[in-house]
């Protein structure tokens, strides 16, 4: 039964994508959306069924299905094979359910676009690729999905291709992630040559049995980490994700919540055994995560574009997940991934609905006072914002963030050479990040929804778009109760399901740790209220460089300091541009051209020299020759009979000479 259902999960969206692409615009626009949604919905139903089957009677070993043998090399089999274990089960549930809600929303959102077939084709292909990625039991097969999501992100970010800025953003996303992909591929090659397989379970056994020496293992871990960082837009690859806002809003929701950026987290969680064997890389991962979450939060604080704020917040939340992965609590990272998928999808979809209502205005300072006009959307956004900030007890984000923070407090991070970084440092930085998170998201909320109205609001949000919002709101609020700190209630459903054999240690959490985690968002909320929300807000105007105390928080100054994305630009684009300038000509081609030109010139020169030389030499003999030739030329009168006579004479003369001699 499960053997049959598992491939079907992937097949349904894949088939829809193929149908939509093959229709090439002949399918009426009204049918493309429902078809795609139905396919993803079918996939979601199958995933739920699988979950019921697996959870009601947990199998002893992961279910593994080899579909076919991809390539067989001497000592290296690569298979197209799927495996279902709790980790992949969780991922397919997130991907299909959140994906389904986003598709449902997109039916109405993209209704008036002339090219819906391409849009929904790319979307379903995106989901299919992500499912391949999370279900593969072979790393090479995983790589198909890995590149597939990159491709689909490019198709979707550059969906409105008439604006060159959009396609440029799409190319940027693809190129930066593909740089990481190349690193990942190198890591796979190294693993394959060392262990002779890319099957994940065999591979991890080889790692635990110490088959790979430490140095190559570290190299592998670093290469895989590079791939994951690029996919998940962490430092130094962060710049593509905010630019990816160029795509339609459902695309952004899909990229940020369900597919694409979570791939990096999934990869490391899937291979956590391998990373656990390289502590230095784990520390690096945690530090990068912490730095990213702070940097991105600061960036989010100074943005004026609604979608860019959300984009930077994704980068920041992914930083939390990398911090958790670096700490070794991959279950916590996945828990946060799940809750983040809910509230980030909610935030994006709400933002899309808002932007549509205010005539495609994306600058938050041109909105304002939307609370009265759109109370439903305000409630949805507030739910999402609260979950993102992690307001205690009532939101899912609180529980997942709390799990990460408390584990980081207890951890130590070996740096090498006997030294170790205390978890307290990273904990305090992450807590500061949590404070900033609350600050920026409620800044956004207050500026958009409170105060005097700044713009005309039109239309209504259709029912088909509000249903997904309601579902996601519910999930954002209640999604966290599956896992709670011991201090509140000993519920550990989530971590037990993921890894029954290694439950997380919760016992020694001091109560004040929990309290600190709970109070930080509230403090942030209070400050945000004072600054932007109250009847007399401290900051109301759009951020232009203004003198005063709150100057730090205005966009231009900070952005000019932080310059989001300046590092990758310098890293990738500038060298490329320089290479571009050098490489305008095919050098060997130019060389051969110039050689041939030189040869040509030389031969002309030689010819000229020869001519003049001969002219000089023969000036004396020329006259004699000419006279002689004139004389002889007279013999060539063109008359056949004369020629015959000459021939006969010559013959007679020759004969005579021969006889006389």
């Amino acid at each position, binding site marked *: 039964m499960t053997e049959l259902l598992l491939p079907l999960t992937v097949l349904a969206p894949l088939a829809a994508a193929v149908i939509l692409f093959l229709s090439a615009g002949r399918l009426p626009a009204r049918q493309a959306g429902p078809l795609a949604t139905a396919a993803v919905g079918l996939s979601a139903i199958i995933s739920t069924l699988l979950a019921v089957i697996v959870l009601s009677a947990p199998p002893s070993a992961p279910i593994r299905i080899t579909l076919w043998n991809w390539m067989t090399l001497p000592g290296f089999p690569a298979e197209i094979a799927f495996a279902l274990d709790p980790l992949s089960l969780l991922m397919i549930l997130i991907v299909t359910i959140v994906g389904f809600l986003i598709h449902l929303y997109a039916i109405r959102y993209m209704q008036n676009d002339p090219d819906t077939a*391409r849009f929904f084709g790319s979307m379903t292909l995106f989901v299919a690729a992500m499912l391949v990625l999370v279900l593969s039991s072979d790393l090479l097969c995983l790589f198909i999905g890995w590149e597939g999501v990159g491709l689909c992100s490019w198709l979707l970010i550059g969906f409105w291709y008439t604006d060159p800025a959009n396609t440029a953003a799409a190319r940027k996303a693809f190129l930066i992630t593909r740089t990481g992909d190349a690193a990942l591929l190198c890591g796979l090659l190294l693993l394959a040559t060392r262990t002779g397989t890319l099957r994940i379970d065999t591979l991890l056994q080889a790692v635990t049995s110490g088959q790979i020496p430490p140095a190559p293992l570290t190299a592998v871990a670093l290469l895989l980490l590079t791939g994951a960082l690029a996919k998940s837009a962490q430092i130094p690859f962060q710049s593509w994700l905010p630019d990816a806002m160029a795509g339609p809003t459902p695309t952004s929701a899909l990229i940020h919540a369900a597919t694409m950026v979570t791939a990096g987290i999934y990869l490391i969680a899937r291979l956590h055994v391998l990373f656990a064997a390289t502590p230095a890389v784990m520390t690096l991962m945690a530090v990068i995560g912490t730095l990213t979450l702070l940097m991105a939060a600061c960036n989010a604080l100074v943005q004026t574009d609604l979608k860019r704020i959300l984009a930077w917040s994704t980068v920041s939340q992914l930083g939390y997940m990398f911090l958790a992965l670096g700490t070794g609590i991959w279950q916590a990272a996945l828990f946060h991934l799940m809750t983040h998928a809910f509230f980030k999808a909610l935030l994006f979809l709400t933002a899309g609905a808002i932007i549509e209502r205010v005539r495609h205005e994306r600058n938050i300072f041109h909105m304002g006072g939307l609370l009265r006009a759109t109370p439903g959307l305000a409630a949805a956004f507030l739910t999402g914002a609260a979950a993102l900030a992690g307001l205690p007890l009532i939101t899912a984000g609180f529980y997942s963030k709390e799990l990460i923070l408390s584990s980081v407090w207890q951890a130590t991070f070996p740096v090498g050479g006997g030294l170790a970084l205390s978890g307290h440092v990273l904990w305090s930085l992450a807590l500061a990040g949590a404070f900033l998170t609350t600050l920026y998201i409620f800044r956004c909320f207050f500026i958009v929804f409170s105060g005097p109205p700044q713009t005309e609001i039109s239309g209504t949000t259709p029912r088909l778009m509000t249903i997904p919002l309601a579902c996601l709101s519910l999930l954002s609020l209640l999604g966290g109760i599956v896992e709670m700190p011991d201090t509140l209630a000993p519920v550990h459903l989530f971590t037990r399901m993921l890894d029954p054999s290694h439950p997380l240690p919760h016992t020694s959490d001091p109560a004040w740790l929990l309290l600190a985690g709970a109070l930080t968002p509230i403090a942030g909320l209070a400050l945000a209220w004072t600054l932007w929300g109250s009847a007399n807000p401290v900051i109301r105007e759009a951020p232009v460089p203004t003198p005063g105390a709150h100057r730090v928080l205005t966009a231009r100054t900070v952005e000019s300091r932080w310059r989001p994305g300046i590092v990758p630009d310098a890293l990738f684009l500038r060298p490329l541009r320089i290479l571009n300038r050098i490489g305008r000509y095919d050098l*060997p081609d130019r060389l051969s051209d110039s050689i041939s030109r030189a040869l040509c010139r030389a031969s002309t020169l030689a010819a000229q020299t020869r001519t003049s030389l001969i002219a000089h030499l023969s000036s004396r003999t020329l006259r004699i020759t000419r006279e002689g030739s004139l004389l002889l030329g007279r013999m060539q009168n063109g008359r056949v009979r004369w020629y015959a006579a000459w021939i006969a004479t010559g013959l007679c003369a020759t004969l005579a000479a021969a006889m006389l001699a």
Partner: protein
Amino acid sequence: MTPLPALVLLPVLGGAIAWLADRSRTRPEQPPPVAWLITLITLILETALLLAETFRQSPDPGPWLDHFSRPWIPPLGIDVRLDMDGLSLSLLWLTLILSLPCVLLATRQIRTRPGLFHFLFLATISGVTGTFLATDLFLFFFFWELMLVPMFVLILIWGHEDRHRAAMKFFLFTQGSGLLLLLSILGLAITHFRETGFLTFNYFTLAATPLSPALSMVLMLGFFIPFAVKLPVIPVHVWLPDAHTQAPTAASVLLAGILLKTGGYGMIRFNIMLFPEAAAHFAPVALSLGVAGILYGAWMSCQQNDIKRLIAYSSISHLGFVLTGIFSGSQAGMQGAIIQMLAHGLSTGALFLIAGSLQDRMHTRDMTRIGGLWATMPRLSGAGVFFAVASLGMPGLGNFAGEFLVLFATWRVSPPLAILAATGLVLAAIYALKLVNGIFLAPAAPAPSPTKDVPTPQIAILGSLMIFLVILGLYPRPFIAASAPSPPSVVTGKGEPNHAHP
């Protein structure tokens, strides 16, 4: 009776008939496509022959599938000798799979002297077929030159604006290096004559010639250079961008899809199989050249604004993988090179077909003047996006299977080289996306967009190429198994050795 000689002769005979039929037409103004029809029939017959050959019981159980041998010039030991193994068979299939779309899509538009065009086209195919089958070195050289001359004329007469220069460049490079090939063949045969006392050009007999290491290296290089020109390997790739750009569509497809493969085929069949030790010594140089080609071709490709030039440079990059795979010294690399040759033939051939049909409609190849094609030609654009994505090495499509195998083999020899080659994949993304975002998914541009999409049959043809690529990418195992080259030492059965005379 083996159909091998028929396979070689059929195209050129069909071409001659096409030419004659076209000459005997009464009214040249309105061309009823007689020549085109005859060409099509010829190719269909050829396909039937090849089908028969493929599913025919092999006369002997060895890896060589079929043999044919008749004396040609007995005093010099030259035979008409054709043998087929899996490598030849798969490359012959590639030839047919590509030439059929060529005829169906591209050659019908030829208005000036269609008879001659089709004759030359089919003569080239004859030459290529012969090259893939000949196992007498003299005969091989004969076919090698045979495919060159018609192609030269095709570029010279039906090419685009700068055709004379391009044709001359093509001719000089390939002809000049062909001379080297002849010298090496003669050198090998004469060495064999000195050692054993009888003159032969038989591939299998010559394979056993005892050679000193130095001589072996010299002869190997003599074989390598002409094949490197054909493949092409930098720095002797210079002829390729011009020839590909200036050639008429059908000739571009033939050049990129098939003619370049003769270089790779020659390297496998002659360099590796005849001189294994010398090739192993030479491998580091060849690997470096291959990786340099990957990076250089991709880099140059990123600079181009001419569609056909961009594709041409991307060919250099892809064939760098072929060279790297061939000389990586392992079975995986060889398999990867062969898969890469097949996949490159399909994807690049299709891209040239698309570029050609764009040029027919818009009369320009300048990417800055073309744009927004998705809006008016969604089907052609979709195909274009697919093949561009295939050529950037998307896993699941044919090119990735080849590239991965090559990278895998290279990593065992030298990880730094493999890392550099993998960097080529990033560059591949740049040019492929530039192509797509330059013309298909791009803002509208000055050149007037055609209002009609390409007709359904054409899309069906491109679609079948897509299916081939997907199969090659997702299930390459049968191709890997079927296309393995056979070493010369294992030939058995009735085809072998007929040189009983001393």
